[in-house]
């Protein structure tokens, strides 16, 4: 057991997976000798050689397209897209190829790939280094989408993703790479070394895909959340003095419908938080799921707290993505409903 940052945990996950299975291959822009711009793959080329960890041309469609071909051959590529914002050139390969090859070939060909990408804002990345495109993946049948919120989960979920038989989009909240974000803009990030989830086994373990985690038990309102916003929700519940149950979804597809339904039926209230834009964001799906399956248990309207429907701003990012004040106000509002 070691104290790890999320970067180290992700690296350790790839290391364990590559050690266990010779077929696991890692590639992407800068991931070889340099170890990736966020250093997630540092040391892997040295340990496993250039045949299994190598740099790729700056061609996201090429990276994912090549990974699909490799997976069809029978190896397991885990590729890195430098920022989630850069996945758009690969969107065709992800959503119309990787997602459907099993289906359209009636299981003759399968393409178990993992596409890792740093996601979300909060590091002054501007509109091309801060996006949260998870809803664009969740709308597509045939791919899975994972967004961890801490180093322990990141490693266990990544190993599960690499071993999964389906294509997995693995979105890493870059705001959490070095420490948990406590939801407050004016406070420094606490290093993961001081946080319980910084404790990560060095050896192989998995966290299953499709299972949510209850981060805080509560009786009054269910908060559905994932990634960076888990910490904002925690701070909000604390400061608003609301007995909120915080559910960290961990994977948005497959979605842990049972965990959501169980919690909302218990609390009768639901607040949904994500930093992606609001309209047609994944929160809309969560709202629909809750409305469809828990309507008669609800005691208040469901509220979404999200990023705004604008491109991601550079200087004003703290006003842009939800903080504990906005989330706290939403919690208080649902509690006021009769």
């Amino acid at each position: 057991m070691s104290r790890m940052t999320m970067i180290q945990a992700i690296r350790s996950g790839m290391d364990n997976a590559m050690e266990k299975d010779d077929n696991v291959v890692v590639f992407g822009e800068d991931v070889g000798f340099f170890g990736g711009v966020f250093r997630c793959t540092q040391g892997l080329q040295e340990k496993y050689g250039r045949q299994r960890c190598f740099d790729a041309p700056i061609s996201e469609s090429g990276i994912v397209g090549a990974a699909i071909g490799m997976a069809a051959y029978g190896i397991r590529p885990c590729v890195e897209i430098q920022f989630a914002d850069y996945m758009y050139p690969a969107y065709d390969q992800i959503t119309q190829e990787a997602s459907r090859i099993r289906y359209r070939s009636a299981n003759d060909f399968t393409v178990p790939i993992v596409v890792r990408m740093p996601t979300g804002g909060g590091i002054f990345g501007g509109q091309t280094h801060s996006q949260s495109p998870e809803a664009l993946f969740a709308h597509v049948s045939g791919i899975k989408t994972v967004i961890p919120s801490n180093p322990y989960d990141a490693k266990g979920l990544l190993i599960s993703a690499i071993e999964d038989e389906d294509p997995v989009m693995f979105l890493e909240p870059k705001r959490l790479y070095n420490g948990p974000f406590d939801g407050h803009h004016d406070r420094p990030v606490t290093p993961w070394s001081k946080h319980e989830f910084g404790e990560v086994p060095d050896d192989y373990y998995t966290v299953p895909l499709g299972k949510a985690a209850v981060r805080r038990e509560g009786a009054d309102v269910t908060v559905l959340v994932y990634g960076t916003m888990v910490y904002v929700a925690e701070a909000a519940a604390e400061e608003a003095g609301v007995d909120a149950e915080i559910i960290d979804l961990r994977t948005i597809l497959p979605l842990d419908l049972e965990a959501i339904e169980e919690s909302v039926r218990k609390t009768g209230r639901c607040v949904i938080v994500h930093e992606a834009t609001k309209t047609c964001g994944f929160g809309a799906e969560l709202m629909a799921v809750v409305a469809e399956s828990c309507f008669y248990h609800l005691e208040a309207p469901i509220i979404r707290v999200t990023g705004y429907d604008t491109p991601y701003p550079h200087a004003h990012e703290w006003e842009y993505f939800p903080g504990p004040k906005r989330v706290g106000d939403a919690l208080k509002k649902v509690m006021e409903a009769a």
Partner: protein
Amino acid sequence: MSDAKPLSLYVPEPEFRPGDKPDFSNVEIPQAGAAPRPPIDVEAGDIRDLAYTIIRVMNREGDAVGPWADMLNDDQLKEGLEDMVRVRAFDARMLMAQRQGKTSFYMQALGEEAIACAFSKALQPGDMNFPTYRQQGLLLSTDYPMVDMMNQIYSNAADPLKGRQLPIMYCSKEHGFFTISGNLATQFIQGVGWAMASAIKGDTKIATSWIGEGSTAENDFHSALVFASTYRAPVVLNIVNNQWAISTFQGIARGKAATFASRGLGFGIPSLRVDGNDYLAVYAVAKWAVDRARAGHGPTLIEHVTYRMGGHSTSDDPSAYRSKEEATSWPLGDPVERLKEYLIKRGVWSDAQHHQMQEMLEMQVAEAQKQAEKNGTLHDGPHSSPATVFDDVYHEMPLHLRRQRQEAGL
């Protein structure tokens, strides 16, 4: 004050439109046998000319000449002719089946049969094609059953793809045929990835990627070239230039200055143009490129110069945009006729034998159709169970899909 004249956009146009009399006499067709045959470990720059000429083996007198000739014996050539005639008979019947409403859609390979039929003979079991549509010859020249292809076209109860794909979008891992996508060019880079995987694993298999000349404008064409070049992937990259992308002539994707093959030169990939209507030339060039890939010398780009004699698909009417006589005026002739005449001149074939073979193949195709129709057609079942709609989306069906299937009562 500027004295510059206003600019205007240059938009290329084909030489002939409906009503025009096509005249290809000014199209430069190099002599058969003129192109050199380099060693397989050649560098791209050393064979630059091969990206601009057309490698031809059969000359106008019906002889096979030059350094690319004499790679196939009589039996292999007769088999090649049979393969092409089979494709033509299959196409004719399935085109008719579409007109009869037995399926929604069909795409024939009329005029292009030599390319896939000859290429497949250069491959070995275990190699993988990443095809585009119109390469049915890759399957029809192997032992893949015609009935299975028809079952797929009919989306019937025996369709190996469970009624999920457009007709002609075949798939068979066992027969080296990757599942076809309707999104153009995506398979071009996937083939390169497959070849890279073979190299990573120290295997001896190679991949081929296929694309139409129009789709070379897609980004993935360029992704494939850069990856193939960078990692020296054991892949053969094929461009089938049949002159027309639906109604858009090849000059729109190409511009006027270059050939499609020449695009490989900038990547350092040996690039060749071949007469796609010359079975012998296609085989010779395919074999050269396949041997090169398998020997670890890296990728090859081949532009197969041919002509799409039919419409783009059964949904297309080529008379609306091109001259009626264009197909028959095409200077590289008909691949079936050319090989037939060559074999006759060689003294190993006759019109009577050809006629007999044609009849036999037409009967085989008709028999296969009868077998396939026992399993149903698109509008006249049986089909696979509707419950299969929910299968194979994921390895294991997630809860939301299980619930949807339950709601659908399936």
